[in-house]
């Protein structure tokens, strides 16, 4: 007998309405005004690939969030919440998903966002297959079909969890206008046309300088958005952007350098937001080549020889969590595994000796890092001094971000690389890097056990059992040091106290549909 699970429209509607009205209890939102925002980087070459091509970068997600909607999204409680779909049904333990869409939703170009348009988006994604960097999340999706004008059914090849990926992994699956993609041809990704609260016009875009979003007057959520315009300035220097916030040149700072937190905490009229880390500071060990193809070397250098506590205390001034687990503490089903690898230089030396390394034959390797955030080089310098104590020689090579990404993500031409990497909803989101042969398997992981556990997680409809699998995966990664996290990468956002109705989503989303300005 087919099991039918049904999430009632009541829950959905409550979730939807919670977004705008949650903040309206104390004060009545005011419409109008321009929100001035600072981002640390530009949107990725001005392209909005909707995850159908290469990874576009966080800034692009955060702009895209406001131009597009998805079928489902994440609510303030980080649970799956309605967006274009007002309700949904999960059939056959995840063999089929039926989405009931809002009616009379229009894209910015005036065309209908109905079941046909949604199907077109899913078909496009399935057709692009591995060209899409998030393909591994959706490779069990078989087809999408139109049930009626406002109902879409997604069929899976086998029962699998689809909603977390749709709702929250790297901006999910944004629904774009098929007409616009046809109209702009090869240039489609420079002309994003969604259903979102704000519209984007490429003529307002100044590369590396300014991104402008304007109010969508036909937005399907009643009364939203409140803001008339959002102007996003690209300010790369964290000190300059922090000063701009304190002198009220900007209203909203997308990321505060963790080392500037004490200053922002003292600033008057500024709200500072943070939450347990969802993103880790990772030291990727390239397991394709020596010395990190040897598990003992990984355990010595990524485990017992690395004083994570010292990095957290010194570099992040106790604002970060020492982290052995592959999951940061803010992520669902996190397991504290720090006791598996206490700082023990003697044990690290013994492991290295066992692997054939000693004073005459020390482990030597290059750590690749970029100069995007000042704490990378601080952490690397501290690690270098820690490794000297176990007789390991580490050479630091600092590069600018594009050159770094080319060597690290493009050519896998590295031994160890440091990066804060991917804000996560759950462990499945990280699985983009778990599969042999996947382009995004940056560390060269070859573990049938991890692949099996990942597939088991995806097929498991029961949440409690998924938690158990997540714990097993974290232990498996830590046991052979297949993924070396140093600490969580703390994320801070700040805005003026007259910015109201914004809900902090800890890097997963930056949405301004409910934001308003409480100033004259």
């Amino acid at each position, binding site marked *: 007998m087919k099991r039918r699970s049904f999430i009632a429209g009541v829950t959905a509607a409550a979730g939807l309405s919670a977004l705008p009205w949650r903040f309206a209890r104390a004060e009545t939102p005011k419409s109008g005004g321009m929100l001035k925002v600072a981002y640390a980087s530009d949107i990725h070459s001005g392209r909005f690939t909707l995850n159908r091509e290469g990874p576009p970068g966080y800034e692009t997600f955060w702009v895209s969030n406001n131009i597009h909607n998805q079928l489902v999204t994440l609510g303030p409680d980080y649970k799956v919440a309605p967006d274009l779909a007002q309700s949904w049904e999960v059939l056959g333990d995840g063999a089929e998903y039926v989405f009931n869409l809002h009616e009379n939703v229009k894209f910015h170009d005036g065309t209908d966002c109905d079941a046909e348009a949604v199907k077109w988006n899913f078909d496009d994604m399935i057709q692009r297959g591995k060209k899409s960097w998030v393909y591994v999340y959706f490779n069990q999706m078989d087809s999408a079909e139109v049930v009626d004008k406002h109902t879409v059914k997604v069929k899976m090849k086998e029962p699998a969890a689809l909603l977390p990926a749709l709702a929250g992994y790297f901006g999910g699956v944004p629904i774009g206008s098929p007409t616009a993609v046809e109209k702009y041809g090869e240039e489609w990704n420079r002309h994003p046309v969604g259903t979102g609260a704000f519209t984007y016009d490429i003529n307002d875009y100044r590369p590396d300088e300014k991104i402008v979003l304007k109010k969508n007057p036909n937005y399907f959520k009643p009364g939203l958005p409140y803001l008339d315009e959002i102007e996003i300035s690209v300010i790369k220097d*964290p*000190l300059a952007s922090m000063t701009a916030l304190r002198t009220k040149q900007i209203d909203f700072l997308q990321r505060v*350098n963790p*080392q*500037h937190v*004490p*200053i922002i905490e003292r600033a008057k009229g500024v709200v500072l937001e943070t939450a347990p880390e969802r993103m880790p500071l990772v030291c990727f060990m390239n397991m394709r080549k020596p010395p990190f193809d040897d598990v003992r070397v990984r355990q010595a250098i990524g485990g017992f020889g690395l004083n994570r506590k*010292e990095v957290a*205390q*010194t*570099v992040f*001034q106790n604002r970060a969590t020492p982290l052995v687990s592959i999951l940061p503490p803010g992520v669902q089903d996190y397991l504290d595994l720090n006791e598996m690898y206490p700082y023990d230089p003697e044990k690290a030396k013994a492991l290295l000796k066992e692997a054939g390394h000693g004073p005459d034959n020390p482990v030597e390797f290059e750590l690749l890092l970029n*100069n995007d955030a*000042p704490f990378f*080089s*601080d952490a*690397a*310098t*501290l690690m*270098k*001094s820690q490794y000297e104590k176990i007789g390991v020689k580490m050479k*630091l*090579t*600092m*590069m*600018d971000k594009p*050159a770094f990404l080319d060597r690290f993500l493009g050519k896998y031409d590295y031994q160890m690389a440091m990066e804060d990497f991917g804000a996560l909803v759950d462990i499945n989101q990280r699985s983009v890097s778990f599969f042999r042969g996947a382009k995004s398997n940056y560390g060269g992981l070859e573990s049938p056990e991890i692949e099996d556990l990942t597939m088991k997680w995806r097929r498991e409809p029961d949440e409690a059992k998924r938690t158990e699998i997540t714990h097993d995966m974290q232990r498996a990664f830590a046991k052979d040091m297949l993924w070396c996290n140093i600490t969580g990468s703390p994320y801070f956002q700040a805005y003026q106290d007259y910015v109201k109705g914004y809900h902090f989503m800890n890097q997963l989303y930056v949405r301004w549909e409910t934001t308003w300005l409480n100033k004259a």
Partner: protein
Amino acid sequence: MATVSSSIPAPQNAADESAPSRLRSTLHITWLRFLRSKTALVGLILICCLLATALLADVLAPYSPYAVDSDASLSPPSQAHPLGTDLLGRDMLSRIIYGSRISLYVGFTSISLAVFVGIPLGLITGFYGGKFDLIAMRFMDVILAFPFYLQAIVIMVILGPSTTNAIIALSIERIPTFARIVRGSTLSVREMPYVEATHALAFSALRTLFRHVLPNCLAPIIVAATFSTATAIIVEATLSFLGLGTQPPTASWGWDLKQNLTFLEMNAWITVFPGISIFLTVLGFNLLGDGLRDALDPRLKQ
């Protein structure tokens, strides 16, 4: 015949015998004129202090510039750490002392390389002229056409970040300066009667160029080298500031300035001291260069 020939000394012998005393007298006059300028003396003292600091860094520095001490993170100036400590608890005084080595090393090495290539190039192009002169000088024009910093950044991006590559980038940029100065001087010197005399005496080209032409071009080269060293130190600090020069954890004023800028508001001293070091060094070279220019300029003879 023998009497006649012995009573008329050969011109080159006369020149050679009188050269040391003339040189001594020129140096003496130059030195006296240099001493008259108090600012030039200040520059000289600053550079001497810097040289002494760099040479005696192992003795002068109270700590290793790489010694991390997490417990002393961001300590203000104290008896233990006269210039405070950075985020990783490294002693700023020690890092500044060792940082002088990098600055001087890059300054002197890059300018020496530029001089080593620029002088022969200027001598040959100026002395012989012709097509080689035309091609070489147009090539120098191309190098000079690009903005200085932009060119350095482009070269560093191509070669990759390191101190050695910073030296190469700075040398490439300074070669045209020396080649042009030497070429200009050579063009005027080659028309002098004493150079014509070397032709008449059938001296080799090398001897003419390096014994009779080059010594008469030295004054502008010395002045340009001094100013160029100051520029090289600033550019190295800039490249390191941008993360393209000296790589961490090596003590470098430019890198330390950038890395500690984060703490400008909370712990200003760790940013201010590397900045002051760069300022004093560049000031020293510029004052020295000014003094040398005045002392070596024959038009300013009293």
